[in-house]
């Protein structure tokens, strides 16, 4: 059946509307889970709060397992899903820049907007810097264009790269995630004096 838009089940023109709705939901969940607070989200770098790690690991793991079951049930054709091409060294450099900006500013791009939504001035300054960065990047793009497109490994998945099946990689990744959840929970227990556990 799926993916819905490439199969024409949902007309192409609706993709921005759907993106907007998903964006609103994403922003709402980010705000609701405390991601508009710099203290919460940069804690992962200082080692006292690992909520970012847990949230994103959970998201990745759920999506990984879910998509593969959807593929198995025939609800979605994974072969038709667009896999972003991997440019290894430019991506490592980009990730470092992103991480440094994350620690310095106290937000990642998405959370800065949720923080603006609740009226945080530091987030507004952060977003100003974000636009400045986009502007400078675009203006100086020809200077590092060659590096930007270097090391193209194609639309490859990690499983394909290591020569294992995607399902086996999923299991390995889930185990890593669970171990990470446990270890970070132990660390938080030690580091934080007044820790309140989330109840659900």
């Amino acid at each position, binding site marked *: 059946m799926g993916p819905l838009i490439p199969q024409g089940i949902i007309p192409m023109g609706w993709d921005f509307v759907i993106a907007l709705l998903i964006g609103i939901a994403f922003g709402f969940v980010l705000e609701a889970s405390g991601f508009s607070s710099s203290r919460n989200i940069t804690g992962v770098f200082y080692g006292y709060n690992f909520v970012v790690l847990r949230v994103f690991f959970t998201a990745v*793991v*759920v999506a*990984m*397992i879910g998509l*593969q*079951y959807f*593929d*198995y049930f025939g609800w979605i*054709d*994974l*072969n038709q899903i667009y896999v972003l091409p991997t440019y290894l060294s430019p991506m490592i450099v980009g990730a470092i820049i992103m991480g440094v900006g994350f620690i310095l500013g106290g937000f990642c791009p998405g959370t800065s907007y949720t923080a603006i939504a609740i009226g945080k001035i530091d987030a507004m300054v952060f977003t100003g810097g974000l636009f400045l960065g986009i502007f400078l990047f675009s203006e100086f793009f020809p200077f590092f264009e060659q590096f930007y497109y270097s090391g193209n490994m194609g639309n490859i998945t990690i499983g394909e790269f290591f020569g294992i099946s995607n*399902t*086996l990689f*999923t*299991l390995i*990744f*889930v*185990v890593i*995630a*669970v171990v990470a*959840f*446990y270890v970070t*929970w132990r660390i938080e227990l030690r580091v934080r004096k007044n820790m309140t*556990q989330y*109840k*659900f």
Partner: protein
Amino acid sequence: MNKNYIILMGILILLAAGLLVLPLKNNSKQLDPEKLMWDIVQPTRYVSTDEVAKMIIERDPLLVLVDVRPTEDFQAFSLPTAFSFPVDSLATDDAIPALTFDKRNLVLYSNDDLKSDQAWIIAKRLGLKNIYVLKGGLNRWIQTIIQPEAPAESASEAEFNLYAFRQGASQYFTGGSISIEQGPQAEVNVSRKKKAKAAEGGC
């Protein structure tokens, strides 16, 4: 640690491990090579000229005749109701929509059955269904339907019946006239007995 977390983690690992034991699913629409090999050696894809002639005469609604020869040849001579689709154009994107007929039987023909066999393999690879090949092609069509050979006198009755059919078909396709001898028609007298009584209302 909260017990709920442990349960959730357990479910996650179980689901991920479940993925491993799922049988591999073949999502590709392409024909399995082994199945294609099997189909290639099967004679079931062939239909005889007699069968096709019968279908044309009976105006079989399921029959779709496809001429895979070059267009010039098609214009020079073709079977009735056939449409032209040269082998070369099978490689284009139009092939699948042009040759997809819901539940109808595609019969490919060329001068012999070499070209149509090639076309059959390509069409199979394209995922088309219900495709057949006219055995012997147009050469055999001429030999059997247009200019049928009389069987030897010692031949079986079935062969004579076939010959009779081919002669009729030949006249059908070449436009020849046939004279059917009809015996003198006797007049039919229909006599009806009159009913003794007029129908009366009941009760």
